[in-house]
Each structure stands twice: as C-alpha cells, then as structure tokens.
C-alpha cells in the first residue's frame, strides 16, 4: 500500500494507481451485475435483500477506514515512524470512513423500511454506527482547523486515538442497552457462513470491490492533500515575493503560521 512512500508525495505509483482505478471500476460493474441479476432473490425478503451486497461491504470499509486512521495516528505519534505520510493517511482514511459510515446508515435505513417497516430502529449496531459517525465527524472538524503542520498532526493523532479507544465502550454499552438486530450472517460466532452459492460469492465479491474502491479513493485523497499543501506553499512564496517587490526595504518577518492562533 505504501508504494513510493519514501518520497511521501504519492501513496501508489501513478501507473499502479491507474491500473487499480480501472480494476476497481470493473469490479464495481461486476458487483452491480451480480447484485442485481446474478444472485437469486431472497426467499423471505425478496429483492430488498439485495441491499445487503452494498450495506455489508460499506460497513466493512467504514470499520477498515477507522482502523487505518487509528494505526496511522499511532505510527505518527511513535517517534521512530513519525512522518507526514501517516498524518495524511489518517486524515484521508477518516474522511472515507465517515463517508462509508453515512452510506451504511442510509443503505441500512433503505433496507429497514421494507423489512422492519421502519427507517430506523434503536438497535445496538445502528446506534453504535451513528455514534461512530459523530465521533469521526468531530475528528474531521478538528482536522479542518489550520495550524502549523506539526501541531495539527499531533492534535489530530491524539484525537483519533481517543475516538478509537471510545469505540469498544460505546459498542459495549449500547449492546447491553438493547439488541434486536439479526446476528452477523458471515462473521457470526461459528464463523461459518449461513448463506451459500451465488449469494455468498456476491457478498464476498462486494467486500472485495468496496475495499478496492477504498484503496483507490485513499490514494486519490492522499494525492489531493499533497497537492493542496504544495499550492499553499506556493501561494505563500508568491505573497512574500509581492511584498518584497512592492517595498524592498520592508522587513519580511516570518509571522505565525496561518491561523495558528485559531
């Protein structure tokens, strides 16, 4: 995943990213075909059950993204592995995590309406996911506050780890509170999938396709972050040049980094 991370400008080499992009597109199209036509309709739930092929992979990617955010935040905080790379990966991954959490909630609501008869139920996993959404929304708000890169990275890395520590407690407390959700179909305690054949294949393929989407978007978001930083640096350089050429005698004192006092 860390391709040419030594330079830190890119996560994946441009060629690798392009190939991954095309493969991802193909995977998503194949998933759509299998999800809509390849897999048979569910005996009880009918066509509504097809939402599972999106809902479950989206939830998986959301958790994966938050785990990646936590790990890269820890790697940033650990002095021996400290690098801008980990800060950018943490930020990019958290954004994707929030996106896929929102997607999970919306897809779940769309699935719940025909099956449970309600958009929303106060079930343990739903509530945990909703809290997770707000936890990381706060993290993203914190990331948006400009400061010196080192300060911001440290602040965000610590916030990401606090949020991550809280997740099991939220999950635990909410589960005690109430549970009426069906048990996990694939990741249940016996770890034996209860669905078979084309349906199981489609679900697993969905997880694969969504993971590819995640990796591709992570690479793109990371690159965008690098370009943003470069643009900012260039703008500062131009502003200094303009100031100097307007009045060569004016002292160019380095003021506090933009927005540091925010």
């Amino acid at each position, binding site marked *: 995943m860390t391709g040419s991370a030594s330079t830190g400008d890119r996560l994946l080499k441009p060629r690798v990213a392009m190939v991954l992009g095309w493969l991802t597109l193909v995977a998503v199209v194949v998933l759509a075909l299998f999800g809509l036509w390849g897999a048979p309709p569910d005996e009880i739930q009918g066509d509504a059950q097809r939402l599972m092929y999106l809902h479950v992979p989206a939830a998986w990617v959301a958790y994966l993204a938050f785990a990646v955010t936590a790990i890269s935040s820890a790697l940033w905080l650990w002095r021996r592995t400290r690098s801008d790379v980990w800060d950018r990966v943490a930020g990019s991954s958290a954004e994707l995590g929030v996106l896929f959490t929102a997607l999970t909630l919306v897809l779940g609501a769309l699935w719940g309406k025909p099956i449970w008869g309600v958009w929303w139920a106060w079930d343990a996993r739903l509530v945990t996911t909703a*809290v997770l959404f*707000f*936890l990381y*929304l*706060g993290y993203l*708000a*914190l990331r948006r*506050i400009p400061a010196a890169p080192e*300060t911001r990275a*440290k*602040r965000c890395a*610590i*916030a990401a*780890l*606090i*949020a991550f*520590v*809280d997740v099991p*407690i*939220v999950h*635990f*407390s*909410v589960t*005690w*509170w109430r549970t009426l959700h069906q048990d996990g179909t694939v990741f249940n305690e016996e770890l034996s999938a209860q669905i078979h054949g084309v349906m199981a294949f489609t679900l697993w393929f969905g997880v694969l396709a969504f993971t590819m989407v995640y990796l591709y978007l992570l690479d793109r978001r990371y690159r965008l972050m690098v370009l943003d930083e470069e643009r900012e640096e260039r703008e500062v350089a131009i502003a200094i040049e303009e100031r100097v050429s307007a009045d060569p005698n004016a002292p160019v004192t380095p003021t506090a980094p933009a927005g540091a*006092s*925010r």
Partner: protein
Amino acid sequence: MLWREVLLVAGKDLRIEARSRVTLQQVLPFGLVVLLLFAFALDPDRGVLERVAPGLFWVTVLLASLLAVSRSYTIEADNGARDGLRLSGLDGPAIFLGKASAVAVQLLALEIVLAACVVVLYGVHLDTLVPLVLATLAATVGVAATGTLYGVLAAGLRVRETLVPLLVLPVVAPVLLGATRAWEAAIDGIPSDAWPWVGLLAVFAVLFTGVGMLAFGPLLEES
C-alpha cells in the same frame, strides 16, 4: 509529590471559582432552567416526567459540564495564563488531574442541587442510595476527565466553544447511557440491575483519566 501538585492546580481553579462564582451564578441557574424547560416540553400532568427523570437529569448535567469545561479553560486564556502553566514546571499528568478534579468537584456540587430539584419538581423518590451515589461519582469523574482532555485539545482555538461539544458529546454517550440506566434501576429499587452500569462507568472513568494523564502534557505544549 504528584498529589501536592494536583492539589495546587485544583486549589487554584477552585479559588478562582470561589471568587468569581461563575459556576454558581451562571452554570447552576442554566441547569435549573433546563430542568424547567423539560417540564414545559413534556407536560408534568401526563406522568412522563417522573419516568424519564434520570435521563433528563443526566442530559442536563452533560450540557452543564460543557459550560464548566469551557470555563475551566477560559480562566487560562487571559494574561498568558496558559504559558504560565506550561512554564510552571508542573507535570502534565498533575495539571490534568488538578484541572479535572476541580471540574469534578464543581459538577458534583451542581449535581446535588439538580438532583434535589428533580426530587422536588419531578416527584422522584431516590431510595436506593448506594449504587446511585457510586454511579454518580464514576460518571462525574468520567465526564470531567473527558471534558478536560478535549478542553486542552481545543484550548487556544478560536472555534473552541463550538468544537468542544461536538467532540465531547459522542465520546461521553456511554456515560449518559450508563448513568441513566443505573439511576433508573436504583429508583425502581432493583440495585442488582445498576451494578453492571456502575462497573461500566468506573471503567470509562479510569480509562479516560489514564488517557488524559498521558495526552495532556503533549497537548498543552501545542495549545
């Protein structure tokens, strides 16, 4: 050594409160108004208030705790007080524990008054006191620790006042859940139902006090 420093910081914050009386004269009345507004929203005659009183009480405490935390860092904002704290030579963990315990003490005082009002206004009977008091203590420590931790994270930011609630409330969601259930169980006279929640609250309090002690120093440096 650590405890002396903790007492020093907590004493400073509490002395400032004793002289300025911001918590007493602003945060406490705020809590009382919220309790009153809940009664307007839920109409006391329908008998709903008594049933949901524990939840309303804890929501009120959480809202008030946001103000208490905000106040705890407002007093460090002027005259370079935060720089003074940084340069004081006190350890990060000690400052954290000091500030968190000052917030906790103020919250406890607030909770006693608010609980009395819940008894009087909502007609609740608080009988089984032991789990109730333990749950309250653990929840208060948890909320104070979390608030103090996020407070220093956002200290010095211009968006501090709007950011801290967004950061703190999702994190303390389990505290609201646990404290409310524990209170309900205690009020219903089923203490055995309250104990698991007291345990959860204690775990939360210990965990976030630990995280706060670790993270406070580095965060104070950057604020």
